[in-house]
Protein backbone atom coordinates (compact mmCIF):
# COMPACT_ATOMS: atom_id res chain seq x y z
CA UNK A 1 0.00 0.00 0.00
CA UNK A 2 1.27 3.42 -0.95
CA UNK A 3 2.22 5.52 2.03
CA UNK A 4 1.22 9.15 2.29
CA UNK A 5 4.37 11.11 3.00
CA UNK A 6 2.72 14.46 3.55
CA UNK A 7 2.15 14.69 7.32
CA UNK A 8 -0.38 17.48 6.84
CA UNK A 9 -2.66 15.32 4.72
CA UNK A 10 -2.44 12.49 7.25
CA UNK A 11 -3.16 14.85 10.11
CA UNK A 12 -6.12 16.45 8.36
CA UNK A 13 -7.59 13.08 7.43
CA UNK A 14 -7.25 11.83 10.99
CA UNK A 15 -8.76 15.04 12.37
CA UNK A 16 -11.70 14.82 9.97
CA UNK A 17 -12.48 11.35 11.35
CA UNK A 18 -12.88 12.71 14.88
CA UNK A 19 -16.40 12.12 16.14
CA UNK A 20 -18.70 15.11 16.01
CA UNK A 21 -20.02 16.69 19.17
CA UNK A 22 -22.97 14.40 19.91
CA UNK A 23 -25.14 17.00 21.60
CA UNK A 24 -27.35 18.61 18.97
CA UNK A 25 -30.06 19.75 21.38
CA UNK A 26 -30.14 23.44 22.24
CA UNK A 27 -29.02 24.16 25.81
CA UNK A 28 -31.66 25.09 28.33
CA UNK A 29 -32.75 28.69 27.98
CA UNK A 30 -31.17 29.44 24.62
CA UNK A 31 -34.42 29.12 22.69
CA UNK A 32 -36.21 31.37 25.19
CA UNK A 33 -33.43 33.98 24.98
CA UNK A 34 -33.57 34.00 21.19
CA UNK A 35 -37.38 34.19 21.10
CA UNK A 36 -37.42 36.91 23.77
CA UNK A 37 -34.88 38.93 21.80
CA UNK A 38 -36.91 38.48 18.65
CA UNK A 39 -40.18 39.50 20.35
CA UNK A 40 -38.59 42.65 21.74
CA UNK A 41 -37.70 43.57 18.13
CA UNK A 42 -40.25 41.51 16.17
CA UNK A 43 -39.66 43.08 12.81
CA UNK A 44 -35.95 43.54 13.18
CA UNK A 45 -34.46 46.95 13.04
CA UNK A 46 -37.33 49.36 12.55
CA UNK A 47 -35.07 51.86 10.86
CA UNK A 48 -33.93 49.25 8.33
CA UNK A 49 -36.20 50.74 5.64
CA UNK A 50 -34.19 53.95 5.95
CA UNK A 51 -30.99 52.30 4.75
CA UNK A 52 -31.94 51.86 1.06
CA UNK A 53 -33.60 55.27 1.09
CA UNK A 54 -30.49 56.92 2.53
CA UNK A 55 -28.35 55.06 0.03
CA UNK A 56 -30.40 56.41 -2.88
CA UNK A 57 -30.35 59.91 -1.38
CA UNK A 58 -26.59 59.73 -1.03
CA UNK A 59 -26.21 58.60 -4.65
CA UNK A 60 -28.46 61.44 -5.85
CA UNK A 61 -26.52 63.97 -3.77
CA UNK A 62 -23.26 62.73 -5.30
CA UNK A 63 -24.70 63.09 -8.82
CA UNK A 64 -25.88 66.66 -8.04
CA UNK A 65 -22.46 67.60 -6.62
CA UNK A 66 -20.73 66.18 -9.71
CA UNK A 67 -23.09 68.08 -12.03
CA UNK A 68 -22.45 71.32 -10.10
CA UNK A 69 -18.69 70.83 -10.27
CA UNK A 70 -18.90 70.09 -14.01
CA UNK A 71 -21.09 73.15 -14.62
CA UNK A 72 -18.77 75.37 -12.58
CA UNK A 73 -15.72 74.06 -14.44
CA UNK A 74 -17.41 74.64 -17.81
CA UNK A 75 -18.35 78.18 -16.86
CA UNK A 76 -14.86 79.04 -15.65
CA UNK A 77 -13.25 77.64 -18.79
CA UNK A 78 -15.43 79.74 -21.19
CA UNK A 79 -13.82 82.84 -22.72
CA UNK A 80 -14.52 86.10 -20.92
CA UNK A 81 -17.99 87.43 -21.65
CA UNK A 82 -19.56 90.90 -21.91
CA UNK A 83 -18.99 91.87 -18.31
CA UNK A 84 -15.25 91.94 -18.96
CA UNK A 85 -15.74 93.75 -22.28
CA UNK A 86 -17.65 96.49 -20.51
CA UNK A 87 -14.92 96.96 -17.93
CA UNK A 88 -12.34 96.87 -20.70
CA UNK A 89 -14.14 99.57 -22.74
CA UNK A 90 -14.44 101.78 -19.66
CA UNK A 91 -10.74 101.37 -19.07
CA UNK A 92 -9.98 102.20 -22.71
CA UNK A 93 -12.14 105.35 -22.53
CA UNK A 94 -10.36 106.46 -19.37
CA UNK A 95 -7.01 106.01 -21.07
CA UNK A 96 -8.11 107.96 -24.14
CA UNK A 97 -9.26 110.94 -22.08
Amino acid at each position, binding site marked *: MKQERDPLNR*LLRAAARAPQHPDME*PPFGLESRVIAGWIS*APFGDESAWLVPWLRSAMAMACVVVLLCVAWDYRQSSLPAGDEVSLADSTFQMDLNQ
Partner: protein
Amino acid sequence: MPECGIDMPVCLVLVQRGDEEAARQLFQHLYPLVIKVVRSHLPRRTSEDDLTQTIFMKVFANLTQFSGKVPLEHWVARIAVNTCIKALRAEKARPEVRCADLSEEENRVVDLLASSGDELHPDRSAASRELVEKLLALLKPEDRLIINLLNMEGRSIEEVRQLTGWNQSVIKVRAFRARNKLRKHLEKLLKEERP
Protein backbone atom coordinates in the same frame (compact mmCIF):
# COMPACT_ATOMS: atom_id res chain seq x y z
CA MET B 1 -37.16 15.05 15.09
CA PRO B 2 -38.50 18.53 15.50
CA GLU B 3 -38.19 19.40 11.83
CA CYS B 4 -40.50 16.57 10.79
CA GLY B 5 -43.78 17.93 9.53
CA ILE B 6 -42.65 21.55 9.39
CA ASP B 7 -44.19 23.40 6.47
CA MET B 8 -41.44 25.88 5.78
CA PRO B 9 -43.23 28.48 3.63
CA VAL B 10 -46.16 28.59 6.06
CA CYS B 11 -43.80 28.68 9.03
CA LEU B 12 -41.87 31.62 7.53
CA VAL B 13 -45.05 33.59 6.88
CA LEU B 14 -46.20 32.96 10.45
CA VAL B 15 -42.84 34.02 11.88
CA GLN B 16 -42.93 37.21 9.83
CA ARG B 17 -46.37 37.91 11.31
CA GLY B 18 -44.90 37.50 14.78
CA ASP B 19 -46.14 33.99 15.63
CA GLU B 20 -44.09 32.82 18.61
CA GLU B 21 -44.87 29.12 18.20
CA ALA B 22 -43.74 29.20 14.57
CA ALA B 23 -40.54 30.99 15.66
CA ARG B 24 -39.85 28.21 18.16
CA GLN B 25 -40.41 25.59 15.46
CA LEU B 26 -38.06 27.41 13.14
CA PHE B 27 -35.43 27.66 15.89
CA GLN B 28 -35.66 23.91 16.56
CA HIS B 29 -35.44 23.16 12.86
CA LEU B 30 -32.39 25.34 12.26
CA TYR B 31 -30.49 24.71 15.52
CA PRO B 32 -28.57 21.56 14.36
CA LEU B 33 -27.40 23.37 11.23
CA VAL B 34 -26.32 26.51 13.09
CA ILE B 35 -24.59 24.68 15.93
CA LYS B 36 -22.64 22.58 13.42
CA VAL B 37 -21.29 25.71 11.75
CA VAL B 38 -20.57 27.36 15.11
CA ARG B 39 -18.69 24.33 16.45
CA SER B 40 -16.56 24.17 13.32
CA HIS B 41 -15.59 27.83 13.36
CA LEU B 42 -15.83 28.90 16.97
CA PRO B 43 -13.20 31.42 18.05
CA ARG B 44 -11.20 30.31 21.09
CA ARG B 45 -12.56 32.81 23.57
CA THR B 46 -16.15 32.98 22.39
CA SER B 47 -19.03 31.17 24.01
CA GLU B 48 -20.81 28.72 21.73
CA ASP B 49 -24.20 29.82 23.07
CA ASP B 50 -23.49 33.53 22.61
CA LEU B 51 -22.43 33.07 19.01
CA THR B 52 -25.44 30.83 18.29
CA GLN B 53 -27.76 33.41 19.84
CA THR B 54 -26.19 36.20 17.73
CA ILE B 55 -26.70 34.15 14.57
CA PHE B 56 -30.35 33.41 15.38
CA MET B 57 -31.01 37.05 16.19
CA LYS B 58 -29.61 37.99 12.77
CA VAL B 59 -31.69 35.30 11.07
CA PHE B 60 -34.93 36.43 12.70
CA ALA B 61 -34.18 40.13 12.22
CA ASN B 62 -33.50 39.68 8.51
CA LEU B 63 -36.11 37.07 7.69
CA THR B 64 -38.10 39.62 5.67
CA GLN B 65 -35.10 39.87 3.33
CA PHE B 66 -35.11 36.12 2.61
CA SER B 67 -36.13 35.93 -1.04
CA GLY B 68 -36.79 32.20 -1.21
CA LYS B 69 -34.56 31.85 -4.29
CA VAL B 70 -32.25 29.53 -2.35
CA PRO B 71 -33.22 27.02 0.34
CA LEU B 72 -33.59 28.63 3.76
CA GLU B 73 -30.85 26.38 5.14
CA HIS B 74 -28.30 27.78 2.66
CA TRP B 75 -29.25 31.32 3.56
CA VAL B 76 -28.98 30.59 7.28
CA ALA B 77 -25.67 28.74 6.88
CA ARG B 78 -24.25 31.73 5.04
CA ILE B 79 -25.32 34.09 7.84
CA ALA B 80 -23.78 31.68 10.35
CA VAL B 81 -20.49 31.44 8.44
CA ASN B 82 -20.24 35.21 8.01
CA THR B 83 -20.98 35.80 11.68
CA CYS B 84 -18.28 33.30 12.64
CA ILE B 85 -15.75 34.98 10.33
CA LYS B 86 -16.56 38.32 11.94
CA ALA B 87 -16.06 36.82 15.39
CA LEU B 88 -12.79 35.21 14.28
CA ARG B 89 -11.55 38.53 12.90
CA ALA B 90 -12.15 40.15 16.28
CA GLU B 91 -9.81 37.60 17.80
CA LYS B 92 -6.06 38.03 17.39
CA ALA B 93 -4.32 35.10 15.72
CA ARG B 94 -2.10 33.05 17.98
CA PRO B 95 1.55 33.89 17.37
CA GLU B 96 2.81 30.29 17.36
CA VAL B 97 2.33 26.82 18.79
CA ARG B 98 5.16 24.99 20.45
CA CYS B 99 5.35 21.42 21.63
CA ALA B 100 5.12 22.68 25.19
CA ASP B 101 1.62 24.01 24.38
CA LEU B 102 0.44 20.57 23.31
CA SER B 103 -1.11 17.85 25.43
CA GLU B 104 0.57 14.48 25.80
CA GLU B 105 -1.80 12.98 23.22
CA GLU B 106 -1.17 15.77 20.75
CA ASN B 107 2.59 15.39 21.17
CA ARG B 108 2.17 11.69 20.47
CA VAL B 109 0.41 12.54 17.21
CA VAL B 110 3.29 14.85 16.26
CA ASP B 111 5.71 12.01 17.04
CA LEU B 112 3.78 9.59 14.86
CA LEU B 113 3.57 12.05 11.98
CA ALA B 114 7.31 12.63 12.16
CA SER B 115 8.33 9.01 12.52
CA SER B 116 6.25 7.20 9.90
CA GLY B 117 4.21 7.62 6.76
CA ASP B 118 1.36 5.44 7.99
CA GLU B 119 -2.16 6.68 8.45
CA LEU B 120 -2.89 7.68 12.02
CA HIS B 121 -4.92 5.17 13.99
CA PRO B 122 -8.59 6.17 14.52
CA ASP B 123 -7.83 6.31 18.26
CA ARG B 124 -5.73 9.37 17.51
CA SER B 125 -8.48 11.27 15.69
CA ALA B 126 -9.61 13.33 18.69
CA ALA B 127 -6.05 14.41 19.50
CA SER B 128 -5.45 15.10 15.80
CA ARG B 129 -8.50 17.30 15.76
CA GLU B 130 -7.26 19.22 18.79
CA LEU B 131 -3.87 19.64 17.18
CA VAL B 132 -5.41 20.87 13.92
CA GLU B 133 -7.50 23.37 15.85
CA LYS B 134 -4.39 24.72 17.56
CA LEU B 135 -2.62 25.02 14.21
CA LEU B 136 -5.65 26.61 12.58
CA ALA B 137 -5.68 29.25 15.31
CA LEU B 138 -2.42 30.51 13.80
CA LEU B 139 -4.09 31.32 10.49
CA LYS B 140 -6.24 34.21 9.33
CA PRO B 141 -10.01 33.68 9.72
CA GLU B 142 -10.58 33.16 5.99
CA ASP B 143 -7.77 30.59 5.81
CA ARG B 144 -9.08 28.81 8.86
CA LEU B 145 -12.57 28.74 7.40
CA ILE B 146 -11.48 27.30 4.08
CA ILE B 147 -9.48 24.47 5.70
CA ASN B 148 -12.39 23.68 7.98
CA LEU B 149 -14.93 23.60 5.19
CA LEU B 150 -12.85 21.68 2.66
CA ASN B 151 -10.77 19.36 4.81
CA MET B 152 -12.61 18.95 8.08
CA GLU B 153 -16.18 18.97 6.80
CA GLY B 154 -15.36 17.55 3.39
CA ARG B 155 -17.43 20.10 1.51
CA SER B 156 -17.06 20.61 -2.24
CA ILE B 157 -15.82 23.82 -3.83
CA GLU B 158 -19.38 24.52 -4.99
CA GLU B 159 -20.72 24.16 -1.45
CA VAL B 160 -18.01 26.50 -0.15
CA ARG B 161 -18.92 28.98 -2.88
CA GLN B 162 -22.55 28.92 -1.79
CA LEU B 163 -21.63 29.34 1.86
CA THR B 164 -19.09 32.10 1.49
CA GLY B 165 -19.98 33.87 -1.73
CA TRP B 166 -16.34 33.66 -2.88
CA ASN B 167 -15.79 32.57 -6.47
CA GLN B 168 -14.21 29.22 -7.31
CA SER B 169 -10.77 30.55 -8.22
CA VAL B 170 -10.59 32.57 -5.01
CA ILE B 171 -11.50 29.45 -3.05
CA LYS B 172 -8.86 27.32 -4.78
CA VAL B 173 -6.11 29.91 -4.39
CA ARG B 174 -7.04 30.60 -0.77
CA ALA B 175 -7.16 26.88 0.01
CA PHE B 176 -3.76 26.33 -1.56
CA ARG B 177 -2.20 29.18 0.40
CA ALA B 178 -3.92 28.20 3.63
CA ARG B 179 -2.64 24.64 3.34
CA ASN B 180 0.88 25.88 2.69
CA LYS B 181 0.78 28.08 5.76
CA LEU B 182 -0.62 25.23 7.84
CA ARG B 183 2.07 22.90 6.49
CA LYS B 184 4.80 25.35 7.51
CA HIS B 185 3.46 25.55 11.05
CA LEU B 186 3.22 21.78 11.26
CA GLU B 187 6.73 21.32 9.91
CA LYS B 188 8.03 23.69 12.57
CA LEU B 189 6.42 21.47 15.19
CA LEU B 190 7.80 18.32 13.61
CA LYS B 191 11.29 19.77 13.55
CA GLU B 192 11.00 20.92 17.11
CA GLU B 193 10.00 17.44 18.12
CA ARG B 194 12.87 15.76 16.24
CA PRO B 195 15.75 18.22 15.94
